């Protein structure tokens, strides 16, 4: 059976049996290369759920305490249960949110999505400059059609860069799978996993500063990257604080850098490299260049890999007597 059919059957069954109050998933949006988040609360609505190479969002961002308060009123239950469809990275963010006490494991029913990566929207549009009416996926290729004209691209060529170094494609926690697990890429200890970061590390301080100034120079401070991220749930984000005001409101390079540095630091030890931030950016800024550094450091410094084990406390909530300390006199 097709993955989408299995997915819908699972969702319908869960809703019909009353085991969950809603199913959070993706549905097709008005643009062929985009999907949108969708909360299905009836079996009919569950028919709209999809999973394909354009499900770039990380649905964990919608698992807010509000959602668990505001289930169907007629359910009469105190704390609604929500099913969520999750790719490998999304599941790691769910683990992180549970570790951070956002909600409890038994409040979510996780429908695992075996993931072979997401197609970069900029790469898709570049492959079909005329526009895309529909996308069909077949054996590792994407067929982009427009007015009867078809462009065939191999999925590997249009993958998002985070998917190329993905360390776990099948969800780490799940209640059931919507399809057979896919083979893993075994990237976790691959020597090239952080080649991009190492390249920047090798630059001189002046070149590093120049590199990042160029990297974020188009940033409009729209905060779409922050809003798309399941880690960014602070009631008041530091960018909105005014006493003191930690970061200026302008798009002067220094203010933009301050935003990106502090956001990346807040994600240190928590980022799963899901790529939702980059996918959301209207200016195509590869801001994962910051967060990937923190992933590398947390791994090298504390042996930490985010969201792999529900029973561990987050890395900045614990310490080891042998933590790196050579930089302290």
């Amino acid at each position, binding site marked *: 059976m097709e993955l989408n059919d299995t997915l819908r059957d699972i969702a319908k069954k869960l809703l019909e049996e009353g085991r969950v109050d809603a199913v959070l998933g993706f549905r097709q949006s008005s643009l062929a290369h985009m999907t949108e988040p969708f909360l299905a609360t009836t079996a009919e609505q569950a028919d709209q759920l999809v999973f394909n190479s354009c499900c770039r969002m990380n649905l964990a961002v919608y698992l807010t305490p509000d959602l668990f308060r505001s289930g169907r009123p007629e359910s009469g239950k105190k704390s609604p249960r929500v099913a969520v469809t999750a790719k490998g990275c999304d599941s790691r963010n769910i683990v992180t949110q549970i570790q951070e006490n956002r909600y409890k494991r038994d409040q979510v029913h996780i429908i695992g999505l075996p993931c072979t990566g997401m197609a970069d929207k900029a790469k898709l549009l570049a492959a079909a400059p005329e526009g895309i009416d529909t996308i069909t996926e077949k054996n590792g290729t994407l067929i982009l059609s427009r007015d009867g004209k078809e462009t065939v691209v191999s999925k590997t060529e249009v993958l998002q860069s985070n998917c190329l170094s993905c360390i776990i494609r099948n969800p780490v926690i799940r209640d059931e799978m919507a399809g057979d697990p896919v083979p893993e890429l075994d990237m976790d200890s691959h020597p090239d996993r952080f080649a991009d970061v190492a390249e920047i590390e090798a630059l001189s301080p002046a070149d*590093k500063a120049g590199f990042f100034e160029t990297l974020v120079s188009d940033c409009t401070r729209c905060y779409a990257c922050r809003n798309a991220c399941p880690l960014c749930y602070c009631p008041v984000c530091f960018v909105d604080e005014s006493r003191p005001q930690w970061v200026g409101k302008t798009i002067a390079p220094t203010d933009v*850098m301050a935003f990106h540095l502090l956001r990346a630091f807040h994600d240190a030890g928590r980022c799963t490299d899901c790529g939702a931030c980059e996918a959301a950016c209207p200016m195509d800024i590869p801001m994962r260049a910051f967060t990937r*550094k923190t992933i590398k*450091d947390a791994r090298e410094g504390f042996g930490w890999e985010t969201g792999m084990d529900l029973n561990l406390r987050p890395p900045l909530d614990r310490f080891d007597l042998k933590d790196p*300390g050579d930089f302290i006199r």
Partner: protein
Amino acid sequence: MNQFEPKIITFLCNWCSYGAADLAGVSRFQYPPNMRVVRIPCSGRVSAKMILHAIRNGADGVWISGCHPGDCHYIEGNYYARRKFYLLKELLEYSGLEPGRLQFSWISSAEGVKFAEVAHEVIEKIRDLGPASRFIKRLPEVA
């Protein structure tokens, strides 16, 4: 002689390094007056925002000093701080901050001599780097 005098924002833990600075003063150990001291309850209290704030406001260097591992007044605050500082220092230097502008030390309240020595070293290192040029928030230039 007209040498560059760096401005260094120094965060000192109330329970150890702040006492060490006091002891160094009372014992008349000489160290240069380039520091602007902020007294903090624990090195764990220092956040990334504070450090970046100092840099954005034109500090030529930032120095944070707390209690030796195992000696924290709050038992383990400095262990958490160490993880945080490690990640932050790496991230800032990765983004272009010159190594040496951000410094850390553990100095107990009995170590007046160490305090004066480290102060010398920190200040000389930052003097060598010259005036800070990165991440500084300047007023917009209007014609």
